[in-house]
């Protein structure tokens, strides 16, 4: 009898012991798992945040780039679209022309990798040949002024088109005034 009891006790103790052991382990495992899950979540959240930051930064950079190139385009467009005009039979630079040339000189100074081609044009009312010569004088007048403002002459080219490339082919004073011009092309 006693032997049986003793064996029963032993087994019970053993069993409960192992039960205790496994439940501990389970507990431990549960804790470990929870811990791992936490860690994982934490890491994911961080990753997400980081990606978000990077995305925002990239977008900002793109926007800035876009803004800069818009400005750049605008400046460039202004440079190329703003012409200077001349009185009939004259290659003299008006005050307004000189102001515009100053703006162009500034642009060229800020973009010292750029060169400019100055085209000289005339209205329709003289001979083909005389106007080729007058157009050349108009282009060179602008070139001389730009060099006075500090742009080296090797960054400037000139060409005359005489009366061959009018903007406005009407036979009116307005049209003729539009055609007596220098145009500036970035190279």
């Amino acid at each position, binding site marked *: 009898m006693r032997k049986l009891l003793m064996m029963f006790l032993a087994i019970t103790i053993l069993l409960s012991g192992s039960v205790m052991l496994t439940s501990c382990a389970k507990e431990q495992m549960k804790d470990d798992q929870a811990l791992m899950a936490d860690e994982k979540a934490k890491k994911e959240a961080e990753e997400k945040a980081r990606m978000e930051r990077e995305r925002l930064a990239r977008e900002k950079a793109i926007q800035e780039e876009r803004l800069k190139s818009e400005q750049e385009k605008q400046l460039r467009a202004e440079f190329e679209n703003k012409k200077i005009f001349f009185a009939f*039979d004259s290659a003299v630079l008006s005050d307004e022309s000189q102001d515009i040339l100053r703006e162009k000189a500034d642009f060229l100074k800020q973009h010292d990798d750029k060169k400019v081609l100055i085209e000289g044009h005339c209205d*329709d*009312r*003289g*001979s*083909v*040949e*005389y106007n*080729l*010569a*007058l157009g*050349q*004088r108009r282009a*060179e007048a602008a070139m001389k002024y730009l060099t006075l403002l500090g742009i080296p002459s090797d960054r400037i080219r*000139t*060409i*005359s*088109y005489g009366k*061959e*490339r*009018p903007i406005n*082919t009407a036979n009116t004073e307005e049209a003729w005034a539009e055609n007596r011009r220098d145009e500036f092309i970035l190279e």
Partner: protein
Amino acid sequence: MNKRLLQPIILIFLITLFLPGTGTALIRIDINSPGLTQFPVSVAPFKAMGSAPLEKSKASELSSLLEKDLDFTGYFKLINPTASLEDLNKMGIDKNGVQFKAWSIIGVEMLVTGGVLINGGELTLELRLFDVSDQSIILGKRYTGEVDTGLRMIHKFGNEILRYLTGFDGYFLSKIAFAGGDHRSKDIYVMDFNGENAKKATNYKSITITPRFAPSGKEIAFVSYKDGQPNLYAKNLITGKVSTLSARKGLNISPAWTASGTEIALTLSSEGDENIYLINTSGKIIRQLTKKWGINVSPSWAPDGEKMAFVSDRSGNGQVYIKYFGTGDVERLTLEGKRNLDPTWSPRGDRIAFSGSGKQGMEIFTIKPDGSDLRQLTFTGGLNLSPAWSPDGSMIVFSSDRGGEKAIYVMNANGANQRRLTFMDGAQESPNWSVNLE
């Protein structure tokens, strides 16, 4: 002699059959006189001399072509031969075959007869010019060549008639070059003196302008932007070869060949100001011809080569000056008008044509080289530009926008008979007139 050695495809043998007749003195036409009386002339229908079937139609074609040439000059009042009292069918072609009274009675002063013979592929054309009141022969020629060279023979005879009347060869075998196109592109064209058969001489899809015939008529100098800037080129019209005369930085424009054809005056801007230089046909600068600040452009040589007209703005606006190479003096020629441009010296040496400001626009004027006898020839109020003389100095070709767009017009040296020669799309400008191309 091997026929193939003869250069022209056409074989034309000139045989002067008759000496110029005696009788009335040679009639001289004063091309500058403002009122030119026209000579009443009649071209009798040419006769078929043989039995070839083509002869009748060829005879009719050729007599019409001679009438057309004579009519172009403005010197002649062409009288219809059917108005005469001659029996045209029975009429002969030599002195004995003509009833001169039948012509003088209707006022004809000069009469042309012609005979056409076609033998195989060969055409023989016999032509005579008679002084009707004197009943004598003035000119007699016989031409032989291929059947389709009849027009050339007519032109040659026409040139002889003009030589008799004016002392200078006619221009019926000459050509006119001009620049045609629009603001996208312009090319050089060459046409007959009367505006027919215009053909493109360049095809660059660029701006190609201001053609100038070399004295031989076989080359044309022109300005083109085909290589990116205004350079001066020359095209040989026989070989088609194009050479670069000057491609210096800036302008290489307004060419003017010397009489020898070996040198060209042109305006360069590569040294700073725009001055006129003399280059050889290899492009090498021989001499600087003007040394002045500002614009110096549009040179035109006097026929003796010792003077040059050109445009300068040294007094404020474009005016015509003359440089005398003997003394080195430069004198202003045009004293009236705001601007005077495009001077061109007559081959006769006695007048300079130019384009000057009229009340409005630009008009064609002529003036004596000493500055006297200024005459205005056009009065449209529009743009009449770039005059050029015929090789005999009797006609002036120019561009005018009187019809809307710019086109090529021609007139007598006194401004009479202004008529349009080109009827193309776009603008036609800057005409230049060659010598007879024999």
